[in-house]
């Protein structure tokens, strides 16, 4: 199987300059990016074994002496390539605010309490079919300084690798029905509505654990598709 990585797939991504998100104007290039053919350097990428993910790293509710406060949830999904094939054994890293909307990061000064039983970081590897699963608590919304009365919708940050260096993805998973969507420049930086909605997880009643946790499903699609017969010539 030889995957190809057409550049046009990148149309799903936000532009690098999006003035509504006020940190972008000074951190986006103004000169044209240079088009180049992908070489072996771009078409390969890191491969990690099971040693990268320790047992329990996928469960953010059991990393401390006590249980974190908040609404316990399961977040799971399927990591696929553009041709719909599961991406096996790939690494996912997540980080998030606690139930009150406070990050443990030293720079976060939002006056909401930290939770001594919650760090907010997790790691998992997809299985042989490309599925992953985390257990965590639902993060809270929080204010930020982008514009007056700016609040980020509740989200979980995801970092995913895939088959090649060009399939690397860092993104954010949102929760369905959040009233803050229409006011959030980061969410709305994705120009196409269908693409934007791919950032929103689905409530997954079938996979809730009765009397224990609700479940959200977040499927991820990474770059990489089959070469068409024309292109393999």
């Amino acid at each position, binding site marked *: 199987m030889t995957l190809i*990585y057409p*550049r046009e797939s990148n149309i*799903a*991504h*936000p532009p*690098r300059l999006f003035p509504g*998100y006020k940190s*972008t104007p*000074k*951190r986006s*290039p*103004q*000169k044209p990016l*240079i*088009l*180049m053919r992908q*070489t*072996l*350097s*771009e078409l*390969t*990428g*890191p*491969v990690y074994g099971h040693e990268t*993910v320790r047992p329990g790293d996928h469960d953010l509710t059991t*990393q401390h002496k006590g249980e974190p406060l908040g609404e316990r949830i399961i977040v799971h999904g399927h990591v*696929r390539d*553009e*041709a*719909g094939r599961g991406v096996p054994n790939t690494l996912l*890293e997540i*980080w998030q605010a606690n139930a009150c909307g406070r990050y*443990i990061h030293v*720079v*976060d000064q939002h006056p909401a309490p930290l939770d001594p039983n919650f*760090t*907010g*970081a997790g790691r998992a590897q997809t299985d042989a079919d490309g599925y992953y699963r985390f257990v965590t608590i639902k993060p809270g919304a929080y204010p930020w300084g982008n514009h007056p009365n700016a609040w980020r919708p509740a989200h979980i*940050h995801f970092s995913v690798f895939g*088959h090649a*260096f060009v399939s*690397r*993805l*860092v*993104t*954010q998973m949102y929760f369905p029905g959040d009233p803050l969507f229409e006011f959030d420049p980061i*969410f709305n*930086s*994705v120009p196409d509505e269908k*693409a934007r909605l*791919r*950032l929103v997880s689905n409530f997954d009643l079938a996979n809730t654990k009765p009397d224990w946790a609700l479940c959200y499903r977040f*499927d*991820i*699609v990474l*770059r990489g*598709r089959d070469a*068409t*017969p*024309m292109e393999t010539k």
Partner: protein
Amino acid sequence: MADQVILGLTPSQTVGPYFAYGLTPGGKYAWNDAFSNDLVTPDAAGDRIRVVGQVFDGDGAVVPDAMLEIWQADAQGRYANPRDTRALPNASFKGFGRCGADANGGFSFDTVKPGVVPDPDGKPQAPHILLTVFARGMLLHLYTRIYFGDEAELNAADPVLALVPAERRATLIARRDPDSATYRFDVHLQGDDETVFFDI
């Protein structure tokens, strides 16, 4: 060929300002690092080098909340990935590193100097390291390449550098310290010295 269903990609979102405790905790948080900025493994042959630099924004201010990742071949020019089907002499050399910028936007990687890698036509590419830059304020990461100032001959024949306007090529060349195996490669996200980034 029309039968293939193509799924739309999951869009990128910014890494934000708070990634450090999850991605680059460095002993400061109750979490361990999956990756390091030291790529050198005991069996890694080749010249040990250090690549250092700083990340700057369009005002020339340092970017302390950036994360940098590198991907490179070993000293023989082989990638530790199944798509590179050539023999891999350094079985434990992974070729991937990650570094969170410090308060001065600074980063460093300890690694080995990569070897020559073929381009799609089989022509040699000059030794290079791929670099991705993530930061608050970046909705999508940027790709660039680190080339080496002491490889003038190979650089002059490199097919990717040849695509870059001559006056901008210097932004892709790491300068070797005359007294040590340390190369300096600064990243300018914007401005007169803007680093060349690639659309791949």
